[in-house]
């Protein structure tokens, strides 16, 4: 009897708490292909929510995160979006794979629930479906390539080589690189593919050496294959500069490719010299004892942007939050100095096209910014 009473008390307590708190759903990937990206981003979201709650929450109510794992499977993802909405989530943050985020939209659009991806970069997320409840603040794939090419232009390159892996995304990025290079009048003297699971990239790199390019563009996204390419590059003693895709901005290269990455330039959305970044890094380190990476910043920005929208809406009503999102202007951790996320009328991709940067590896560390924007 006593036990039953205690249980009942506990249940009521949770119910009361639930009424007080604002529930935010998070769909992440803990075991699938997006895990290397999704996990740090989720840690950033959790850190952001804790920070908000320490300051008394939003509108005087605590933020309660409901975190689900979709394994980067779109079908699982849609079901989880439904589950989160049923559990009372007023906003869903999606940090899993782009196709999974896309599938969630079919649910959020129908259930009129705000949803945002702070990290996905696929251009199609805001163009294929006209979902007024969805926003994207990750830098678009097209912006990444344009920024990298803008930097290449400053080097007045004429002849370059292109290398990628045989993954779907690696092929897609290589295609975009090719189109961009051709548009800029830069000649591609050799184009190579290294299949994932290869034991060496030396034949490809020899062929590139033979074509004598002024620079090499690495469009691959599979870390192990990129490491293989850099090893062959060092072994053959090659000297031409390397400009690499966004994949090089993940922190694992600092340990997995030790001694191989010095001098490689890559596109990123993170400027370590920015005051917001410095404050974020210090606070994160103090709270968790670990250094955050750019990926943590995406999750953190997503959480803070939602909090700002709820504050502006003055309530946790989904329709009011939606209206507030469209009028918000928020400066976060990500993006070049002075960049703000904005959603002008009709636009739901909020990352400034000139907000990306090109950085360079200094030793094994991701170092300074050498170029900003698309100009």
């Amino acid at each position, binding site marked *: 009897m006593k036990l039953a009473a205690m249980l009942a008390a506990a249940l009521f307590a949770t119910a009361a708490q639930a009424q007080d708190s604002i529930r935010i759903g998070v769909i992440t990937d803990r075991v699938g292909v997006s895990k290397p990206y999704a996990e740090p981003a989720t840690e950033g979201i959790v850190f952001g929510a804790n920070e908000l709650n320490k300051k008394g929450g939003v509108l005087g109510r605590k933020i309660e995160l409901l975190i689900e794992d979709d394994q980067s499977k779109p079908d699982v993802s849609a079901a989880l979006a439904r589950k989160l909405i049923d559990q009372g989530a007023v906003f869903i943050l999606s940090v899993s794979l782009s196709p999974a985020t896309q599938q969630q939209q079919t649910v959020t659009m129908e259930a009129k629930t705000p949803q945002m991806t702070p990290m996905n970069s696929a251009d199609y997320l805001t163009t294929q479906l006209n979902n007024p409840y969805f926003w994207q603040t990750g830098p678009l794939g097209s912006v990444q390539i344009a920024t990298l090419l803008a930097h290449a232009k400053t080097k007045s390159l004429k002849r370059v080589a292109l290398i990628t892996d045989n993954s779907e995304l690696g092929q897609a990025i290589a295609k975009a690189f090719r189109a961009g290079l051709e548009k800029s009048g830069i000649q591609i003297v050799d184009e190579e593919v290294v299949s994932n699971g290869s034991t060496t990239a030396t034949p490809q790199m020899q062929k590139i050496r033979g074509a004598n390019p002024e620079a090499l563009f690495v469009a691959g996204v599979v*870390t192990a294959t990129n490491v293989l390419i850099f090893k062959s590059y060092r072994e053959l003693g090659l000297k031409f500069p390397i400009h690499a895709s966004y994949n090089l901005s993940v922190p694992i290269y600092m340990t997995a490719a030790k001694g191989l990455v010095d001098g490689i330039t890559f596109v990123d959305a993170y400027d370590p010299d920015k005051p917001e970044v410095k404050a974020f890094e210090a606070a994160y380190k103090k709270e968790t004892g670990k250094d955050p990476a750019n990926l943590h910043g995406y999750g953190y920005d997503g959480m803070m942007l939602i909090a700002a929208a709820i504050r502006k809406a003055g309530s946790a009503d989904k329709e009011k939050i939606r209206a507030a999102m469209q009028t918000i202007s928020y400066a976060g951790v990500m993006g070049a100095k002075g960049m703000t996320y904005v959603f002008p009328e009709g636009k739901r991709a909020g990352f400034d096209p000139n907000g990306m940067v090109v950085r360079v590896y200094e030793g094994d560390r991701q170092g300074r910014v050498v170029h900003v924007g698309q100009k």
Partner: protein
Amino acid sequence: MQDFFELAVGAAASGCVYGLIGLAYLLVLRPTGIINFAVGEWAMLGAFGGFVLLTKYEWPYPLGMVVALGILFVIGGSTERIVVRPLVEKGAPLLAPILALLGMVVVYRETISSVFPPDPMPVPYALGMGRLEFGPVGGTYQSFFTIGVTLAVFTGAWFFFERTLAGRAFEAVALHRRAAALMGINLSRVMALSFGAGAVVAGLGGLLVAPNTSAYYLMGVPLAIQGFTALVIGGVGRVEGALLGGLLLALAEQLTVRYAPIPSGYAQGVPLVLLMVFLLLRPTGLLKAKG
């Protein structure tokens, strides 16, 4: 021309790794008749053993190598004991243990992917990073090390099967299980040993290739395919067939990428086309079984 020699050494090293994986198939196949696709995952376990013992705990290379391969021997032996033997003893058809071992592929991989992060993990070179040149022929220390170790392993395996009584016992079990048992050969011990040795050889392949490819949870399947192809090309009749097949496969792979006048995306398919042609012309493999 310098490109060719440089490539030849690297390709020979890759071929040696394929050959080791091929030999791992053969060690299990000979006495049991089982094609064991889990050899690729054993190679992955060898690579992760290298990461944990050599990179993380910074053990001296020979010690780390011996301990990692010792662990693989236990894993191989216990896989036989737990997964294969019950099926064989119950008289299940040969397909049953083959499928059970395919299931083990998933078990090994998921175990690793839940224990380690999904990123590629660095494994050190045996002799450090550096190059050795003999006139026009040059290659990395690791390439020469891989070639040397592989030759030693194949010599040992050849000696075992051709010159020792125990090796003959393996052969006898392959030929006729019941007759071999009647002759006093301990079937269970032969089977457990063949799986243990297969795991050691596959793990060695993984450990040797990992300084190039890094250790990551998806590395097993491509190696399993390359090793199997090497075995098919070389033929299962003789031990050295696997090595010959591996070398031919690696050379075909890398020379087509380097020299064939087709986009390198298509060049990946060339070795497989060669394999099909090869099977049509010489279905028993390059080397015929003796006697």
